[in-house]
């Protein structure tokens, strides 16, 4: 007699146990194949002789040797370092500054917040195109200021091979700092007011309160912001293609553009795959220690 009573909950249990797994499994499967599977495939290709099409003729580390003997690749890495560091640091600084200023209970905060956040709604292609016109010496800012009467004014970074990479930082910061501001603003609003009140009673100035109490307590926000910005920087492709196309010359080449060109337009899939693997290794080398230290720190708290 007891059996049918037991049967029912067991079935429900089973459904409860299996339903989420069944529902999630297509996603898991797709992710496994299209992310991790392709990572493995790319890695395999980087050890082959592949040119136009994938072939499985293994040549060891030859493609990596070719890659690192290529001047353009080294230039691309250097550019990524310049762009990545400046982009992350300036975005954090500008975003934090804007957030702190907005946090002063100013009027029309909602409106101003939208104004700063809005660039994030544009794609990098649009940002790149707009800045391309603004920075073009024959139609943009330089021409405008000269037409105001400052004949000697010169702002030709976009066409100067030594400076072009910095113009990309300008456009990138313009696009992304509003987003960083939004992150920080949320963080600032989450800081416990009573701590600030207590500090004020102790006679601490606003500067001290921000630098000693509020900003250090934003550590998790810094963490998320840096992760977001770092991956935008490393995969940066569209912004640069729209803004400079990698030029003048190869002066704004970055690894993503290098990878695309070698794999898809220059019939050197092996070298392209090797460069993709090196990019992945770069991300892992930066993120894993960072993640590790951050996650351990939060566990200890």
């Amino acid at each position: 007699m007891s059996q049918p009573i037991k049967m029912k909950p067991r079935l429900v249990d089973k459904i409860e146990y299996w339903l989420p797994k069944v529902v999630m499994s297509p996603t898991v499967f797709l992710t496994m194949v299209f992310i991790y599977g392709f990572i493995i495939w790319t890695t395999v290709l980087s050890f082959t002789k592949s040119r136009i099409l994938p072939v499985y003729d293994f040549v060891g580390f030859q493609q990596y040797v070719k890659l690192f003997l290529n001047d353009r690749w080294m230039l691309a890495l250097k550019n990524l370092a310049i762009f990545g560091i400046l982009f992350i640091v300036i975005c954090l600084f500008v975003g934090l500054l804007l957030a702190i200023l907005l946090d002063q209970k100013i009027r029309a905060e909602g409106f101003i917040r939208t104004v700063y956040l809005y660039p994030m709604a544009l794609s990098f292609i649009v940002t790149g195109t707009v800045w391309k016109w603004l920075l073009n010496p024959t139609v943009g800012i330089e021409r405008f200021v000269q037409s105001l009467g400052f004949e000697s004014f010169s702002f030709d970074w976009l066409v100067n091979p030594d400076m072009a990479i910095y113009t990309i930082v300008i456009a990138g910061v313009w696009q992304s700092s509003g987003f960083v501001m939004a992150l920080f603003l949320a963080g600032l609003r989450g800081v416990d007011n009573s701590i600030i009140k207590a500090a004020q009673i102790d006679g601490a100035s606003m500067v001290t309160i921000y630098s000693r109490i509020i900003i250090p307590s934003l550590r998790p926000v810094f963490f998320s912001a840096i992760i977001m910005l770092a991956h935008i920087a490393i995969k940066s492709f569209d912004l640069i293609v729209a803004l400079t196309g990698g030029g003048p010359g190869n002066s704004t080449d970055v690894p993503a553009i290098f990878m695309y060109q070698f794999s898809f337009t220059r019939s050197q899939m092996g070298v392209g795959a090797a460069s993709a693997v090196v990019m992945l290794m770069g991300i892992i080398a930066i993120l894993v220690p960072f993640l590790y230290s951050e996650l351990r720190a939060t566990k200890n708290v």
Partner: protein
Amino acid sequence: MKFSKSILGLAIAGAMSVSAVQAGEVEVLHWWTSGSEARSIAVLKQMVEAEGHTWKDFAVAGGAGENAYTVLRSRAVSGNPPASAQIKGLEIQEWGDLGFLANLDDVAAANHWDDVLPPVVAKVMKNDGHYVAAPVNVHRVNWLWANPEVFKKAGAKVPTSLDELWVAADKIKAAGYTAIAHGGQPWQDATTFESIVLAVGGSDFFDKVFVKLDQKALGSDTMKESFDQFRKVKQYIDAGSPGRDWNVATAMVIKGEAGMQFMGDWAKGEFTAANKAPGKDFICAAFPGTDGEFTFNIDSLAMFKQKNADNAEAQKVMAKLILSPKFQETFNLNKGSIPVRIDQDMSPFDSCAEASMKTFIATSKAGKGLEPSMAHGMSTTSTVQGAMYDVITEFFNSDMSSEDAVKKLTRSVKAAM
């Protein structure tokens, strides 16, 4: 749909009383998507359909065909390539070596391709001695496009040598115009550079450097001299040139903001679209110092092996039609290029095309001076071409010395071979 179409095709074939011919389907991957280009390829579609076969258009828009090329590769990898694809230059050989391309020797023999095509062109269309692709047009790359109005105002004359070029450029610059309209993209830098190499070293040298990739020639003083001359171009271009598209540069010449442009004859399409007449509103001349020489850029349709016999038959019909004088005429009138057949009637074409054809025939008969363009992927694989692009564009956009450029070029070509 497909079924009823092939029935219709059969009916037409039957009506035309072509007894043994079965209707097949040709799928053509191309990136002729702009107005004049789409009109040009539509002619081929009509001709194929008039023969009773079906045409499946597989147009992928986007620049120099990078998007289309990526699609093609995924189709090829999955074992389902289209009947035909717009592949050019040495890429044809690479696909042929991988065993994807169909043999067109019987079509070629029946239609005397060997007689109507210059040997240099035929060589590009062959893999391992067999025809695998059909050429649709010839572009001449070493052109100089000039605005006569600007030249008149500056008191300059159209240059015929590099020395005269710099004299004319100085005058135009002094008169307050941009002397040379240039788009600072790697392929445009390379286009200008290869014309200069041709002017400095002549066609034999050009052949050694860009076709045979001769290390000694690449490292020679002539090459250094070419880089020196190339550097001079920089004094005459405007600050806005980096990243500029070629047609925007052409527009500068059309509007009279700039004196001249170095570009292949696709630039003519821009002039005619702006209702300008050759000889009157614009001048087409050989790149200074390369008169009587011809660097070519040929578009072609390579044919992929087909599993279905009817489709293979349709493919051969299409290959035959591509080289027919009628298609060559209509296509090239629309596209601005010249036909590949040396026996083509040139009367419907304009004076620039006629001049181009004259040089094309003369150089192919002489067996000298008809050279594949490096900048447009005719002379080398895309790997070597890319290595050359990198050095040329880096030289042009930095203060690298000509000695270093030559060394770098030699080394990176060797690494890419």
